[in-house]
């Protein structure tokens, strides 16, 4: 005869248990399911994505009406269970009794409400079920709505972020000194707080709530803190913790401690009553996360089916589901005498990683900002792996294990599936790997199926690595030239990985991309320094020690160790006063050679290193700034006199040259950049062999790019025509920014153009106006940092860098 099973509570644990039970033997029980909520099983973990609008309720339902009907589960939803009569073996619901042979308590937990005055006011809610979620969603629909969340733990922060995403003005009040204190230490808490504040969420820590204040309408009006601060709100969410819901079990006379006591088979003190989920206490432990609940569900189903099984409480991990706050935490963090920490911090990237070790095992891991290795650490916690062999590099994750024979593919292997590989066509790693597994076994077929590496081609190296990684020995990649002996990656790979992995410091590049030297060499360091400052102008701090001496000392070193000094002459225009100041400086510092350059300025050659700040100061005082004649950056804008004086001039070429130079000066580029502006096609400024050369014509401006007059001589190719001066400027700036963002270090524009093709550049700079505007905007952001005179800055703050450390020749002779 079919036995009768009654289940109280339709939460995630009971839902999973029913699946196991029915899968094991659909005929074993006649099942009745009670739920106080007027609905069946849904994924409570997904309430935050519902709140933030990323999912709907329908998306998170795990069992719908059809499922219950198909599996003969009688549902009594929206009906509370009043009592359990163990003697008669019946469950008494609000609408009548049901007899049972076996009974399962899955009553879950209740949110803990701090008994503050006013905690029962309308508008004070917990964050527990769909009703709570709906209240918060509704609040977001009201313009100017304000909310206070008490509790800076996982749930409270997800509630706060969800409401903030819906436009609510949210304040989080947390009693402890920092957020998520159970999972994070102070510094990680700080990083989290900062990213929440960036989302517009106010966060008050060490704040004690005193009273919830009612408004005239009897609803919540504000939260008052014990320092008297009033935080006005239309909704107050209390997310301070949960308590196992045990009242019914207690009344039924079951053994109850903090939760309903269960043994390893999930059986309570009554052999016919079982329990699982957040309402139980097993071996002293309570449960709030889903992984152990699923384990319990399986064990309980087995017990009901008479299959031997045993619940073992394992470590669990948790992730904060707030977009933009990447946080992972697993295991146990409590300080103990026999525990040690390994901490990795990268403040520039906002990355924090902490491992707690006990003996040779990881017992806890927390990561902020970069959680890619979370699953790997978690598996070591669960498996209690002996990590003594890899302890030195443990914190850097799986890409770093394996000793000296580092796998060149490790960095690519470690990328998550959603990492963007091809920036031009927005193709992620997962898409490419799927295509390879689907039969695209070489680069051409991959390009055809995914468009990856189909445009500028700078990601080709990475795509080939993915081919190698996915196909193994079946794929023979063409040999690519790495930057230098410090790493196995090409310039293009490094550039792409800096962007896709959001690497924002040199140590991050060295670590994440598997550098084989402690801190690079004279070949890779200047390149990496440039890539970082070009990609993250506001976040990355330029490193003078990673620059060739010319750029570090803002002067060109000569064969005898002296330097050349060349002030800027905007568009090649100077004045008698400037010329006098240059002559005075040449006299004062005994400059042996004064030379007029091909770029229309005056070079003072043979200045002693320690005199540099002094001569700069004199030139600064005469109104002149650095000409950057030493930099991989904008050099000169050569001009002819144009329409001001020349009888053939069609436009103000000198004026345009000066404007361009004032916009572009100070910017760092992969290699030097020289411009020319000629006032008519006679081209006196030799614009057609410059990196960017503008030729003025009656109808406007012809913009050519990719000229050369050095090791190679090459005429510019026409990027496009501009009708107005402003358009000519925008095209130039956008072109240079595209070059800055994509070219290999030490490729002049013509070399870069030969690789990516003029069409590709035109699409982004000429045809797509949004793309052009975005390039100009990014250039301006970078220039907010770099459009400054380095001479003046060094005179002010770096002067002693040029002086001797000490002068022992002045010591009295012994």
């Amino acid at each position, binding site marked *: 005869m079919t036995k009768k099973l009654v289940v109280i509570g339709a939460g995630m644990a009971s839902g999973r248990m029913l699946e196991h039970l029915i899968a094991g033997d659909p005929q074993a029980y006649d099942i009745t399911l009670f739920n106080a909520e007027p609905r069946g099983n849904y994924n409570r973990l997904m309430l935050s994505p519902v709140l933030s609008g990323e999912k709907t309720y329908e998306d998170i339902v795990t069992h719908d009406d059809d499922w219950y009907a198909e599996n003969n589960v009688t549902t009594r939803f929206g009906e509370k269970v009043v009592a359990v009569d163990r003697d008669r073996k019946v469950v008494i619901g609000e609408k009548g009794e049901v007899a049972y042979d076996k009974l399962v308590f899955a009553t879950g937990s209740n949110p803990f409400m701090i008994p503050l005055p006013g905690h029962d006011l309308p508008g004070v809610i917990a964050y527990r079920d769909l009703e709570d979620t709906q209240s918060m969603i509704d609040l977001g629909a009201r313009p100017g709505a304000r909310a206070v969340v008490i509790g800076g733990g996982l749930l409270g922060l997800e509630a706060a972020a969800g409401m903030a995403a819906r436009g609510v003005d949210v304040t989080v009040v947390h009693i402890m000194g920092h957020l998520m204190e159970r999972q994070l230490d102070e510094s990680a808490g700080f990083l989290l707080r900062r990213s929440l504040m960036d989302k517009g969420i106010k966060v008050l820590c060490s704040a004690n709530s005193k009273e919830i204040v009612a408004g005239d309408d009897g609803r919540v009006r504000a939260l008052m803190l014990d320092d008297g601060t009033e935080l006005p709100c239309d909704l107050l969410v209390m997310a301070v913790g949960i308590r196992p819901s045990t009242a019914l079990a207690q009344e039924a006379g079951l053994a109850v401690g903090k939760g309903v006591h269960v043994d390893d088979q999930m059986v309570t003190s009554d052999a016919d009553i079982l329990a699982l989920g957040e309402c139980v206490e097993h071996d002293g432990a309570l449960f709030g996360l889903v992984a152990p609940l699923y384990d319990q569900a399986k064990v309980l189903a087995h017990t009901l089916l008479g299959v031997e099984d045993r619940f073992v409480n394992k470590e669990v991990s948790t992730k904060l589901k707030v977009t933009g706050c990447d946080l992972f935490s697993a295991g146990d963090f409590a300080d103990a005498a026999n525990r040690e920490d390994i901490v990795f911090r990268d403040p520039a990237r906002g990355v924090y990683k902490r491992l707690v070790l006990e003996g040779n095992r990881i017992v806890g891991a927390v990561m902020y900002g970069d959680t890619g290795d979370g699953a790997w650490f978690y598996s070591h916690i669960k498996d209690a792996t002996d990590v003594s062999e890899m302890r030195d590099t443990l914190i850097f994750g799986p890409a770093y294990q394996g000793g000296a024979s580092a796998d060149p593919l490790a960095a690519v292997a470690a990328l998550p599936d959603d990492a963007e590989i091809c920036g031009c066509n927005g193709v992620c790693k997962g898409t490419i790997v799927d295509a390879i597994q689907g039969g695209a076994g070489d680069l051409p077929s991959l390009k055809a199926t995914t468009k990856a590496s189909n445009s500028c081609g700078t990601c080709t190296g990475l795509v080939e690595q993915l081919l190698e990684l996915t196909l193994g020995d079946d794929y023979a990649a063409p040999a690519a030239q790495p930057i230098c002996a410090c790493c196995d990656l090409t310039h293009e790979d490094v550039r792409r990985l800096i962007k896709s992995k959001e690497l924002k410091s040199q140590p991050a590049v060295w670590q994440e991309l598997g550098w084989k030297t402690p801190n690079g*060499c004279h070949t890779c360091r200047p390149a990496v320094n440039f890539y970082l400052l070009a990609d993250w102008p506001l976040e990355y701090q330029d490193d003078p020690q990673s620059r*060739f001496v010319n750029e570090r000392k803002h002067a060109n070193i000569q064969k005898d160790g002296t330097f050349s000094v060349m002030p800027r002459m905007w568009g090649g225009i100077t004045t008698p006063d400037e010329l006098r100041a240059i002559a005075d400086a040449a006299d004062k510092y005994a400059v042996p050679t004064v030379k007029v350059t091909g770029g229309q300025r005056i070079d003072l050659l043979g200045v002693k*290193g320690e005199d540099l700040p002094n001569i700069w100061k004199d030139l600064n005082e005469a109104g002149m700034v650095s000409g950057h004649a030493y930099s991989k950056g904008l050099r000169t804008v050569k001009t002819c006199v144009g329409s001001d004086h020349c009888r053939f001039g069609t436009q103000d070429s000198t004026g345009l040259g000066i404007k361009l130079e004032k916009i572009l000066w100070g910017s760092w580029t992969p290699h030097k950049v020289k411009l020319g502006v000629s006032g008519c096609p006679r081209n006196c400024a030799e614009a057609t062999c410059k990196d960017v050369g503008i030729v003025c014509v009656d109808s406007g401006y012809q913009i050519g790019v990719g000229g050369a007059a050095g090791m190679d001589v090459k005429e510019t190719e026409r990027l496009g025509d501009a009708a107005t001066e402003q358009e000519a400027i925008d095209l130039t700036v956008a072109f240079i920014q595209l070059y800055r963002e994509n070219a290999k270090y030490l490729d002049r524009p013509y070399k870069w153009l030969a690789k990516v093709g003029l069409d590709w550049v035109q699409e982004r700079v000429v045809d797509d106006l949004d793309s052009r505007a975005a390039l100009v905007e990014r250039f301006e952001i970078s220039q907010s940092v770099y459009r400054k005179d380095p001479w003046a800055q060094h005179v002010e703050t770096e002067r002693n*860098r040029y002086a*001797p*450390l000490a002068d022992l020749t002045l010591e009295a002779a012994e």
Partner: protein
Amino acid sequence: MSWIDIAAIDDIPLRGARVLKTAAGCVAVFRPTEDEAYALSDRCPHKGGPLSDGIVHDRKVTCPLHNWVFSLETGEAQGADEGRVDTYPVRVENGRILIDGTALTRRHAA
């Protein structure tokens, strides 16, 4: 040995160098890590380049003129190049850099 206190370690930028003027000529004092200093003659044996202006990496420096690389520990040229730069004993104590004055004088006398 007679140790002469020349400067604080923080007077030299990390992975940078400064010049010490001595009767024996210019000496480049390097700081390849937070708390280490090395002193080498500030003259590349190849074409006389100022090593103090080179890029410091690991415990090595690259000459700014023609990219010869020298070990800061031994003064030996690395890789295919052959040559050696004089080195001077240096100690770092309590954040101060001390150089062996005797070694400087000896080199001068020689």
